Structures are given as structure tokens and as C-alpha cells.
């Protein structure tokens, strides 16, 4: 029972973190029709900048400064890069973001080196909060959850209650029409791209020290975030939320399950002939955990090509 509680808690934190990344990506895709391949690179940039800034000014300053900084970098990239490429079509835009991901991926190790940097949880939050299922639960995890929930509420209110939020949601389905009603759509694109990057940067600040800040972090998380956005339905905010939480829980659960695959399937009432493919059934669930998101992705797309809540097919 406590084990389940721990999985739910960790799954929620991880899921909300994934949402912080996927919501920006799905909004950018929905409005501009561009899959931003550099999105996770902004997450990495956030983590490394947070490392440097927290040494000089402390973690709390980094928590405020880094998202703003990464958001500004994103806005500049959109305004002076993507917007110029826009007239050459979506393929050119896709290649542009690919190049950008590549550049960030090379520049980061040039500045910070190829090995993990010692970006640490702030001392004020570095203590066990309570004990659950025999594990000490770090206070910082709860802090991550609080930041993620605060971000979710702010984002929700901004989209649901403000005029700019209305414009953004309208542009998800008919960007051209929004422009012809007199709204400066290119400016809104820049804002949304910047805001999406700021959220990715924020995720980097709060996750970089809980996990590891190293030059490969964009690649490993990037793939999962793409899977989430496609699974949730390209351009769907609610889809991104559901898929993020789903992957968060499923992956956390599978990592903590030490059980062999065959036994797990039998527990689920799926009979397997363990005499065949003996080795396969011996693999523990924890070891297949990294593929789980992609298996889910393929399952969802096979059953619903539009994604969980999408309106257009992937």
C-alpha cells in the first residue's frame, strides 16, 4: 500500500515535469505547425544556466532568472530565426529547429564540459520530509510538485481567463482567421514560443539538480516528450496533460517493479507459455521501463491516430 503511495507521488511529480515540457511543445505545434526539435534543448539550457547562476546568486535567484532568460532566448530565436525561415514552409522550419538542437547540443559541452556538472539541490530543501515504504522522501520532491502545480494553475488561468489566452486557443485551430480579425499573429507566435521555452527552462531549473545535469539530458528526455505530445494529440493541451501523467505513472511504476515480465503478465491474468522464449519472460519490468512510453505511443496511435484528445491525425 505504501509502495503504491510512493509510486503515485513520484509518478505525479515526474508526470507534471513532463507536462511542463510537453505543453510548450504542443502549443507551438498547434499554433505554428512546427514540431520544435530543439524544445528539450531549452530544458537542458535551463539546467546548465541554473547551475552557473546558482553558484553566483543562489538557487532562488536562478529559479526566477533562468526561465526569463531561456524564454527571451526562445523569443529571439523565433523572431529572428524561425520567422525568417517560415516563408519557405514547414520542412525548412523543421530543419531549422533540428539545426538549433544540434548547435545547443554542441555549445553546452563547449562551455560546461562533457561530464555532469555538480548542480545540487539547495541546502534549505535538502532533507528527508517523511518516510514512506521504507524510503526517506526528499523535501525537494515536494517542492518540485508545488512549482509544477503552481505553473499549471498560472498557465490554466492565463489560457482560460485572459484575452491573450483566447487568442492563443483560437490560433490552435484557425491561425489565419485570428490574423484576419486584426490580431498580430506573428507577435503571438513569438510570445508563445518564448513562453514554451521559459517553461522548458523552468523544468530544467527544478529537475536538473534532482536528476543529473549533463549534455545528454536533452536527448533522453526529448524523445519521451515527443512521444507524449503525439500520444496526447498534436496541439491538444489536455491531451498533453493526460499523456504526461500517464507516462509519469507508468514509467515510475515500471521502474519500481522488480518482477519478471512473465510473472507480471500472469498477475494481470494474461497467460503466457513460459516454456517458449524463456529468456524474455525473465527480464524484469524495471529493465523494459525505458521502452514503455514508446510502446504506449504505438498502442495509442494504432487505436486512435489522432492521439488521445487530438483533432488532427499525427
Amino acid at each position, binding site marked *: 500500500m505504501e509502495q503504491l503511495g510512493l509510486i503515485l507521488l513520484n509518478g505525479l511529480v515526474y508526470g507534471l515535469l513532463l507536462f511542463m515540457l510537453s505543453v510548450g511543445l504542443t502549443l507551438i505545434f498547434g499554433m505554428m505547425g512546427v514540431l520544435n526539435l530543439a524544445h528539450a534543448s531549452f530544458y537542458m539550457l535551463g539546467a546548465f544556466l541554473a547551475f552557473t547562476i546558482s553558484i553566483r546568486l543562489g538557487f532562488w535567484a536562478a529559479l526566477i532568472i533562468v526561465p526569463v532568460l531561456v524564454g527571451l532566448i526562445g523569443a529571439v530565436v523565433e523572431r529572428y530565426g524561425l520567422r525568417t525561415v517560415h516563408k519557405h514552409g514547414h520542412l525548412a522550419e523543421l530543419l531549422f529547429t533540428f539545426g538549433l538542437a544540434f548547435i545547443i547540443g554542441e555549445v553546452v559541452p563547449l562551455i560546461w564540459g562533457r561530464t555532469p556538472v555538480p548542480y545540487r539541490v539547495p541546502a534549505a530543501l535538502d532533507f528527508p520530509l517523511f518516510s514512506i515504504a521504507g524510503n526517506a522522501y526528499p523535501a525537494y520532491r515536494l517542492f518540485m510538485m508545488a512549482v509544477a502545480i503552481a505553473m499549471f494553475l498560472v498557465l490554466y488561468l492565463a489560457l482560460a481567463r485572459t*484575452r491573450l489566452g*483566447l*487568442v492563443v*486557443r*483560437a490560433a*490552435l*485551430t*484557425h491561425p*489565419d*482567421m*485570428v*490574423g*484576419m*480579425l*486584426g*490580431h*498580430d*499573429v*506573428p507577435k503571438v507566435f513569438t510570445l508563445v514560443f518564448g513562453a514554451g521555452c521559459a517553461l522548458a527552462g523552468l523544468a530544467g531549473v527544478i529537475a536538473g539538480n534532482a536528476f543529473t545535469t549533463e549534455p545528454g539530458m536533452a536527448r533522453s528526455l526529448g524523445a519521451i516528450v515527443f512521444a507524449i505530445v503525439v500520444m496526447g494529440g498534436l496541439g491538444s493541451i489536455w491531451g498533453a496533460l493526460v499523456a504526461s501523467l500517464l507516462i509519469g505513472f507508468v514509467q515510475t511504476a515500471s521502474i519500481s517493479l522488480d518482477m519478471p515480465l512473465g510473472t507480471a503478465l500472469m498477475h494481470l491474468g494474461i497467460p503466457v507459455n513460459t516454456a517458449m522464449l524463456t529468456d524474455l519472460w525473465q527480464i524484469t519490468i524495471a529493465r523494459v521501463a525505458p521502452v514503455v512510453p514508446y510502446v504506449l505511443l504505438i498502442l495509442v496511435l494504432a487505436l486512435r491516430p489522432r492521439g488521445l484528445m487530438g483533432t488532427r491525425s499525427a
Partner: protein
Amino acid sequence: MMLSVQGLQAWYGKSQVLRGVNLQVARGEIVALLGRNGAGRSTMLKAIMGGVARDGRIQFDGTEIGRLAPHQVARLGLGYVPEDRSIFPDLTTAQNLILGEKPGPGGKFGLDDAYALFPRLRERADAPAGALSGGEQQMLAMCRTLMGSPALLMVDEPTEGLAPMMVQKVRELLVAVAARGVTILLVEQKLDIALAISQRLYVMGHGEIVFEGTPASLAGNAQVRREWLEV
């Protein structure tokens, strides 16, 4: 002239659709733009708004708008209602209307005016716009554009696919809007409506203007109707 278009050309990729169109609309007029499917009427409205690749002179109230972005054209006072209506389906009826409000001068037409013109919109104010019927969506699209208080309203086939009752309502709305002093450029398929409510009309064929005149002159010109309009 309120709107003056000279030598307008437009392209989708490499294929040219408009081949040098001249068209004028004076303040206070209802002008109809007729033609068969594929003649280039929708492209004409999109080109004026800046929604397709184009070249030529377009003047609105003396300002050259041929190189402006769509939102800049709209802010000068051009309202556009597209053929597909482009309703924002996930937003409510009221939110759709609110999005029609524009920064800058205006404020002559508000939510209450929209509801007065078509009371059904008030009843459906909090329903997702995607749940409205086709006719209601057409009314919503027109009222949404009117919320920006345009001086010139360009409407693309507003009666297409509607039941006779709704066609009548759309027609009444256009007449009411014109009575409020809004100039109208109307793309229509139904000849009877165009003949009844417009002061002047143009007929397009293959991306060019092939006839220009009054309803009476078109009514009396069976040859133009046979060659360019009847199917």
C-alpha cells in the same frame, strides 16, 4: 473610392489564379461578386486581406494595402468572413464574438448588437461554437467580424449549404448591416439574392472580371449569364 483594386494577381504556389483583376467599391454600396465555382472569387477576397501570395495595387480609403499583413489590413477597417466560416470550435459563442473585437478605433458594434441582430446567439452564448448548427455558425462568423466595426465587410458565400429559412435570415442581416452604414462586398452563388440586394455587380471567370454592371443590366444580359454563371 473606398476600395480600389487594380491589376491584382494572386498565386497558390506556382499556379496563378488571379490574372489582373480591377474592381471598385464605393462607400455605402453593396457590391456582389459572382461567378462559377473555381472562378477565383474566394481568392480575390483572400488576396485583398493579404492571405495569399499577390501582386498589384490595392487601395483602401486612399492607403496602399497591397503589402500589409492580414492583421494590419483588418485594423484599417476591412472585415472578412471566409467561405468555411473558420469558427473557433472549442471556444464558446461569446468568446468567438469577443475575439472579433479589435485593438484601435471601433466600438460601434458590441455583443448586444450581435445578440439583437440574431437572438439565437445569446441563447447559445456559453455553448461551444462547434456545437452550433451550420446556419448559426454563419451568423456567428458574420457577427464576430462585425464586432471589429469594419467599414467594409467582405463576405464569402454566406448562404452556401443553408436551409431556405436561414438563407432569408442571412439576407436580412446583410441588409440590416448595410443600413447601419457598412459597405459590403458579397461573394454569392445565388443570383436572386445578389440581384435583389446589390447596387452593382461583377462577374468573374478564370481569374478575370468578365462583366461589370447593375443588377438590371445583368438581368437583361442572358448571354453573360449563360456563359459565366449558369451551370
